[in-house]
Every structure is written in C-alpha cells, then in structure tokens.
C-alpha cells in the first residue's frame, strides 16, 4: 500500500479538500464520499447572530480528519490563538497555519508562519503551514517540526494551476517531510501534474466547490491525483528534443 503519513495519521487518499464555498453543505458530505478524501479543512469565525450558527462539522463523516485553518490571522499570535480554540473545540491536533496580510493575492507571511509553527509544535500540534514556496523557509519549517509544508501553486481560488512549478519542484526534491501543493489548482490535470512532479498530496477547495457539479468534480480530482501518483511511482520516461521512433527502423517493406 502506498501510504502517506502526516503527523500521527496515515492516509491512503492523497487528495485533501476544503469546505469553503459549497452552495449547500450537504454537497460536502457527498463530495467526500465520491472523492474518498480523508482530510478536509474548516475555518473558525465569530457567530453571525443575524444568520444563526451553522455547524459545518456535522456534515463531515467521523473518519475524515479535520484540518482547521487559521484563516483571518494576520500574525503568529492570532494564528496560535485560533489553533488553540480549534483544538479546545474538539477538532483534534491538526492545524493548517494560514497567516495573511496581503488581501489582493492572499500571499502568506512565511516569517510569521514559522514563528507560529514553532509555538504550536511545542504545544503538540501537527502543523501544516501554508507557505510561499521557498527552500530556506521550508528547511526552517522542517527544523521547527512541521508535519508538512504546503506551498501555493498560484493565488488562492485563482484556478491558475502550478505557476510556481520550478520552486515547488525544488522543495519536492529536497524537503524530507510531505510537500502538499495547496492553492491555485484549478483542474484535475493540474492536480495530476503536481503528483507527477512528486508532490505527496494536493489540497483542492475552490476548483471542486465552485464547479457546477462539485460531487463529480471531487471524484475527477481524486482520480487525477491517483493517476499522477501512479505515474510518479512508475517513473516517467525521458524527454528528448527530437523523435525516438517507437516502431523498428529496420525491415521496411519498401525495398
């Protein structure tokens, strides 16, 4: 079995999903069933008294690992506070650190993220930091005890695919903890691309939840991830600039 270990949990499905932007929460349950995704993100917010409280958790089957995110945090301190609340609320020990001050591109602050990682690791969390792909920071995150690194492929929700491919490849080739491409993956083929590159997993939210049929799209992504992973393990044949005939170049009938 090809198992992915993150923190103290083992996963056989390498598609991580998110709960954002579904038109109906019931679709989350169906999407999880169709895709087989074993880990899903949730966010923590103030209750909107006018709208009444929702409980996204009850739409997530018990066997799926919850990955609360610290979205909304602008500093390490705020992220740590959100992480502690999420754990206290019974969400488990996994946390996706997301620290953002830039509202146009939603680019993460690697420096604050590293700070928060150190604190939360010391408190026993399994920390999955959402980062701008950077080798030096990734080494520091490994040293700090992160459970994975999650570089963005392109800005959150942009569906532009793996634009930071070269740097992400460097992370994949050099980082010893799981590298999970998060953000920007818009199509199953892009998820397959990340997996062919050797990414350990991908996290996809918008491309699934904003599809016309999120349940079928969840399955499409899951198959693409499996396909890409299988291709990576099978080791791709070499590229070349000129043709290499696949039929024999002898014994032609013309002479």
């Amino acid at each position, binding site marked *: 079995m090809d198992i992915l270990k993150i923190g103290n949990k083992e996963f056989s499905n390498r598609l991580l999903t998110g*709960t954002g932007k579904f038109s109906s*929460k019931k679709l989350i349950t169906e999407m999880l069933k169709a895709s087989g995704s074993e880990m899903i993100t949730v966010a*923590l917010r103030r209750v909107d008294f006018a709208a009444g409280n*929702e*409980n*996204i958790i009850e739409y997530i089957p018990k066997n799926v690992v919850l990955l609360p995110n610290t979205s909304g945090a602008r500093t390490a301190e705020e992220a740590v506070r959100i992480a502690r609340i999420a754990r206290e609320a019974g969400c488990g020990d996994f946390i996706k650190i997301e620290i953002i001050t830039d509202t146009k591109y939603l680019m993460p602050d690697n420096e604050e993220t590293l700070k928060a990682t150190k604190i939360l690791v010391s408190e026993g969390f399994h920390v999955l930091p959402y980062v701008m792909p950077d080798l030096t920071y990734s080494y520091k995150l490994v040293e700090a005890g992160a459970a994975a690194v999650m570089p963005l492929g392109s800005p*959150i929700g942009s569906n532009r695919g793996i634009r930071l491919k070269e740097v992400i490849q460097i992370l994949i080739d050099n980082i010893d903890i799981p590298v999970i491409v998060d953000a920007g993956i818009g199509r199953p083929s892009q998820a397959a691309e990340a997996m062919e590159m050797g990414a350990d997993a991908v996290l996809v939210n918008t491309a699934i939840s904003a599809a016309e049929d999120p349940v079928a799209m969840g399955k499409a992504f899951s198959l693409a991830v499996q396909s890409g992973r299988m291709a990576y393990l099978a080791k791709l044949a070499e590229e070349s600039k000129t043709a290499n005939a696949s039929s024999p170049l002898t014994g032609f009938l013309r002479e």
Partner: protein
Amino acid sequence: MKIVVNGKVENTDQDTILNYILEKNLEPKTVIVEYNFKIVKKDTWNNVKIKDGDNLEILNFVGGG
C-alpha cells in the same frame, strides 16, 4: 449590565454563559465560547456568571479552505 460580545458592546440581563447562548437561540453543541479570552468548556457554561464589563467571543466552524 454592559458586556462585549464578538467585539460589540451590548446590554444583557442573562446571568450565565449558558443562558446567554440559549437566549440567542444558538445550539450549544455547535458553538465555542471564549470568556475574557479564555476558552470555557461547555459543561461549565452553567456555572460561569456574567459580570459587567466581561468579554465574550462566540465562535463556530464554517466552510473554509
């Protein structure tokens, strides 16, 4: 008395966290409460008395990526 709830000042005559939550028609199972910046476990909501000037954060999990 005046308390701060989710960053806004409001008046309440509810005496405990539990009663405050129920008055707001919230399902206790699904909300998380920080009382003066410390998380309070649900089973103690009935014992935590609300005083003038207290700060409450009432949170829940929502969709997010």
